[in-house]
């Protein structure tokens, strides 16, 4: 790194420019990753943010992958889950998308829960819970319906009073979520037996939300109960793929991220290739004076490492900061996959570009290279 560091010091302006470019590309990649992740979350956040450990689905046919649209659990299944050792709470949860109208009309997803279930955000901190004839709106739903506490909101055949606006974003399949009591939910959302009125006593819901106790059941115990009851349990994260809009979008969003990463990696890789070729004259001199290939590689990688390290570091920090700010007004997610992953990929490919270029340069005959200088 003898020459690499002195180069950096000597050509400060040029390296500042390179670092800026690398930082901007990193910013772009990391911020767009945060945006796509945010978009992904807009179709799933109400599920992934549920304060539960597992969701038990009841698929219509054995072996079918669970979906929120088709799943339907019976009271028997819900009670059986509650009795499983290690399961602290097994709450029925109804999920259905309905047209709702306040000042304006919008599609919302109604989550039907029992009072005291703890599934409505904020209830733990003394926020309003559901009760018969009332509805709790998420912030998004309040905006979409133009409704506030005390207003009347129509949902299907029901007229509900807004009991509270929860201080939380909750979205399901790109619709804002409202919480109603499970009894009311039967009228707006239930399908099949419950809707037809010939169910056994008690309500029917879409899934059972399981909260584990201090001593959670083993994977084997879960699988055994699943087999016995004809249910399929999934973590809230796994349950994302039971949301039809998520499975449809996820591929496109993932592809977007992959392409973006690939393109910017190529750009950064090519950038360092060109830069190293620019240094070919100096490299030829070192070679003619007797530098080994390994010496040249260490020098080039060291230099690329400094530029990439500082540039990517700055860009990542910038994107994380901007992401956290933007998260207030749009769907943005800042986590490891939107910061560290792009950073590592960019550093790796930039370094690879420098290595490829310098091995090329090291191969040329120093005599010919010097003659051209």
């Amino acid at each position, binding site marked *: 790194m*003898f*020459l690499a560091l*002195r*180069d950096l*010091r*000597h*050509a400060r302006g040029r390296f500042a420019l390179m670092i800026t470019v690398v930082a901007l590309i990193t910013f772009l990649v990391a911020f767009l990753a945060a945006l796509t992740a945010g978009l992904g979350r807009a179709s799933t956040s109400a599920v992934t943010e549920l304060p539960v450990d597992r969701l038990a689905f009841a698929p219509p046919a054995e072996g079918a992958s669970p979906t929120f649209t088709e799943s339907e659990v019976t009271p028997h299944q819900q009670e059986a889950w509650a009795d499983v050792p290690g399961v602290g709470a097994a709450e029925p949860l109804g999920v259905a998308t309905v047209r709702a109208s306040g000042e304006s009309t919008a599609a919302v997803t109604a989550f039907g829960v029992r009072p005291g279930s703890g599934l409505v955000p904020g209830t733990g901190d003394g926020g309003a819970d559901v009760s018969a004839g009332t509805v709790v709106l998420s912030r998004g739903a309040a905006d979409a319906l133009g409704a506030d506490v005390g207003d009347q909101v129509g949902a299907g055949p029901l007229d509900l009073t807004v009991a509270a606006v929860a201080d939380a974003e909750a979205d399901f399949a790109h619709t804002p979520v409202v919480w109603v009591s499970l009894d009311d939910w039967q009228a707006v959302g239930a399908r099949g037996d419950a809707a037809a009125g010939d169910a056994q006593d008690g309500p029917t819901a879409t899934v059972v939300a399981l909260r584990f106790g201090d001593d959670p059941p083993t994977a084997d115990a879960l699988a055994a109960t699943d087999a016995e009851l004809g249910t399929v349990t999934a973590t809230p994260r796994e349950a994302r793929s039971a949301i039809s809009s998520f499975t449809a979008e996820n591929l496109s969003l993932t592809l977007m991220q992959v392409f973006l990463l690939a393109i910017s990696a190529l750009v950064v890789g090519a950038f360092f290739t060109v830069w190293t070729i620019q240094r070919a004259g*100096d490299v030829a*001199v*070192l*070679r*003619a*004076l*007797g*530098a*080994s*290939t390994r*010496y040249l590689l260490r020098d080039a990688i060291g230099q690329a490492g400094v530029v990439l390290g500082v540039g990517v570091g700055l860009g990542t920090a910038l994107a994380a900061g901007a992401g956290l700010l933007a998260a207030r007004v749009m769907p943005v997610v800042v986590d490891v996959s939107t910061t560290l992953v792009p950073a590592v990929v960019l550093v790796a490919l930039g370094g690879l570009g420098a290595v490829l270029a310098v091995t090329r340069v*090291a*191969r040329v*005959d*120093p*005599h010919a290279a*010097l003659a051209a*200088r």
Partner: protein
Amino acid sequence: MDLTLDRIRLAYPDGDGVLVAVDDVTLTVPSGTTTALLGPSGAGKSSLLAVAGAPLDAPDDAAGAPRAARGPRRRARRAADRAAALRRERIGIVFQQPQLVASLTVLEQLELMSHLRGRPAASRRAHALALLDAVGVADRADRRPEHLSGGQRQRVAIARALMNDPQVLLVDEPTSALDHERGVQVVELVVRLARELDAAALLVTHDEATLDPVAARVHLADGRLVEAPAAV
């Protein structure tokens, strides 16, 4: 160590055919002595020096590299690394152009030579300063090449070639940018150091007037050694 060049032939690709720059040159420079290589422009002097300085079939021990090369590309790289090791450990080269590194100061140009051999760059600073003093640029030690005159650059390049106490010294027109007095001094320095280091020095020049201290002379014309000086 003697420098022996045995039936050297070097051809450059030239359009459809080849241009023979050096043709069947056999030459020995005994250790401790200096031989002047004279000849008109384009005679092949620099080309001959390049061959002497880049022995592509350098022996294995030079680089200490294991002989595990697989595949032609690997083998070529190993050969190039062996040649580089030989240049770094045993050969001092002054190119026709000074070929200094733009981002290094004069002192660092010399310290780089220690660093290339895996030593701390500053490990032979006193030696470097003594060499710079000997070629008369010690007062420019912390300048970069862009702030030097052409002659000063050339002298730095000479000091750099001497930095690792070479056993073979290849010097291409060291006096072309110097006044007569400096030219004579530089030639004397090369002759003296070759003697002190017991090195074989091959010195290319146009300028016979500076060659008083040099006993042995060979003449090159059109790539071949010729007996008498070419008629001018």
